[in-house]
């Protein structure tokens, strides 16, 4: 009787270790770190994690379907550069800011879907292994982004880009009360310091996207088929699922999220930047998905887990930084956690799976 209960507790721990670990980290950093515990810093963690969150969400679909997408980091860079170039040139040509900005984003995101479409066709129709197809696309997107940016950050964007990137849904100040979307005009230092900013706009946009796609994965036919294909391509095919069409859609979703991340990056840093900002992002995205409980063998994982994986990496980043530790510790820590995640999946499959 006791044994059964112990087993049950153990299986809960094994299944939710990432969440438990995240809570431990939050407690640890709150005690050790300076300025860690507080709404302002937590908001920073979430805001900093938005890029990774987008990439990892797309990657979740691909990994559950049994594949991998290495191209997303540079697809993001490519879209960031292209969007910025379009915005800059239209703005320079004298078009209204709103038009320059929306056109820039749309063109960037639409072009960003193409690598995903090509990945999907290569993998589903021409049977190229996902690793190879997306590694090829990794190089191509990298080169193209470089070509468009000519190696320099793209600046002179419409000024509104910066405003949008810094905007929050609502502001609260003891003096002016609650105001939506626009920052109240304050002159005194103390008032500015006391101004409460509630939910950055990028976070809201991402939250909406996440809810939609978490729902798609968990509750729709499309999601069910994704799990079926990842679990067994043959069984899925013989159950009448159109596997190649589904995989093309899956890689396009991944590219869509990478593109959104690229467009978002323009607003976040007010520039079109490639390379140093975008490389190695795909690896952290994959790490987040795996830490969140997905299996690289496919058929397992969910968006909720991925969110925890991303927050875990983000918290680690932020906490180590506030403790004054150099950035390389972050790589070491994420590497260790990734390996532990896979070990748990390997050695306790029955614990993790059983109800």
């Amino acid at each position, binding site marked *: 009787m006791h044994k059964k209960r112990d087993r049950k507790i153990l299986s809960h721990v094994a299944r939710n270790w990432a969440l438990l670990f995240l809570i431990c980290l939050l407690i640890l950093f709150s005690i050790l770190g300076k300025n860690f515990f507080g709404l302002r810093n937590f908001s920073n963690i979430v805001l900093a994690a938005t890029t990774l969150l987008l990439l990892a969400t797309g990657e979740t679909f691909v990994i559950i379907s049994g594949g991998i997408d290495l191209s997303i980091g540079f697809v993001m860079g490519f879209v960031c550069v292209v969007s910025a170039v379009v915005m800059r040139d239209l703005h320079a040509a004298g078009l209204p800011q709103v038009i320059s900005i929306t056109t820039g984003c749309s063109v960037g995101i639409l072009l960003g879907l193409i690598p995903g479409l090509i990945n999907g066709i290569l993998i589903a129709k021409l049977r190229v292994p996902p690793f190879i197809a997306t590694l090829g696309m990794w190089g191509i997107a990298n080169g193209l982004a470089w070509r468009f940016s000519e190696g320099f950050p793209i600046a002179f964007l419409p000024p509104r880009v910066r405003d949008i990137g810094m905007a929050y849904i609502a502001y609260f100040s003891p003096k002016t009360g609650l105001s939506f979307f626009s920052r109240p005009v304050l002159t005194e230092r103390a008032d500015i310091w006391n101004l409460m900013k509630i939910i950055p706009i990028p976070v809201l946009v991402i939250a909406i996207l996440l809810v939609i796609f978490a729902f798609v994965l968990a509750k*729709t*036919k499309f999601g069910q088929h994704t*799990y079926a294909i990842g679990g067994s391509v*043959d*069984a899925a*095919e013989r*159950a009448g699922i159109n596997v190649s069409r589904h995989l093309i859609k899956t890689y396009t979703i991944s590219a869509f999220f990478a593109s959104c991340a690229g467009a978002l990056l323009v607003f976040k840093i007010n520039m079109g930047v490639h390379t140093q900002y975008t490389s190695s992002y795909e690896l952290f995205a994959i790490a987040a998905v795996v830490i969140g409980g997905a299996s690289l063998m496919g058929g397992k994982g969910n968006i909720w887990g991925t969110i925890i994986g991303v927050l875990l990496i983000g918290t680690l980043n932020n906490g180590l930084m506030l403790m004054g530790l150099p950035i390389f510790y972050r790589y070491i820590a994420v590497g260790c956690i990734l390996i532990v995640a896979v070990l748990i999946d390997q050695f306790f499959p029955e614990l993790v799976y059983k*109800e």
Partner: protein
Amino acid sequence: MVTNKLLKAGRDITSKSEPILELRGICKYFGGVHALEDVGLELYPDEILALVGDNGAGKSTLIKIIAGVYQPDKGEVLMEGKEIEIRSPRASMDLRIETVYQELALVDKLDVVENIFLGRPLTKFRWFVNRKRMVAETVDILKRLKISIPSLKEPVQNLSGGQRQALAVGRAIAWSGRIVILDEPTAALGVEETRKTLALIKQIKEQGASVIVISHNLRHIFEVSDRIIVLRGGRRVGSRIKSKTNIDEIVKLITGSL
């Protein structure tokens, strides 16, 4: 010549009604290999037809043609007298042909309910999965077929071989196929599990469907089937009514020593 006569004899006795499914002159080549050469098959309503033959005789290739996995290079397929083409597994399923593959039937990581409805979940508003109704129907199906499975939320990799097989067969019945194809349903099963699976096969017939079953185990074949078609080297070498033949004769047909 001998083969032809046997064929006719087999058909005469059962041809009280039209075949529900008929294959004529089917050829299938893989590169230079002639997997099937001018093979015919007819399946009558409410019949359990066994397909036997040695390894490489072409049994699996033949059922994969019916299941829409392969396309024949030559020959025609008729359903209730009308010529049809089965271009994909989905097309086969749409014709209400359900196939239970030896090992590829289930997705290990998905649970019982998801496997029963693999590839065609019940939906509401077209896109959204209706889990509640799927669970209710699964409970119903399992009860009807007297299959006992500890938990519906269990990933099927945690089930025993017999439970998995029962599930795969149960799925075919649940979808009320009018033709159910079973590839080696009793391979790798224990004694009790085999008995249960054979009982399930008979149950399919009672539900008014026709069955094609492949097996290496002639004792099992003789226990459940009504008629036996023998393949050898990609050709059909005989068709026998079960009650008018015996294991010895079938073995001789399989090995070519008749």
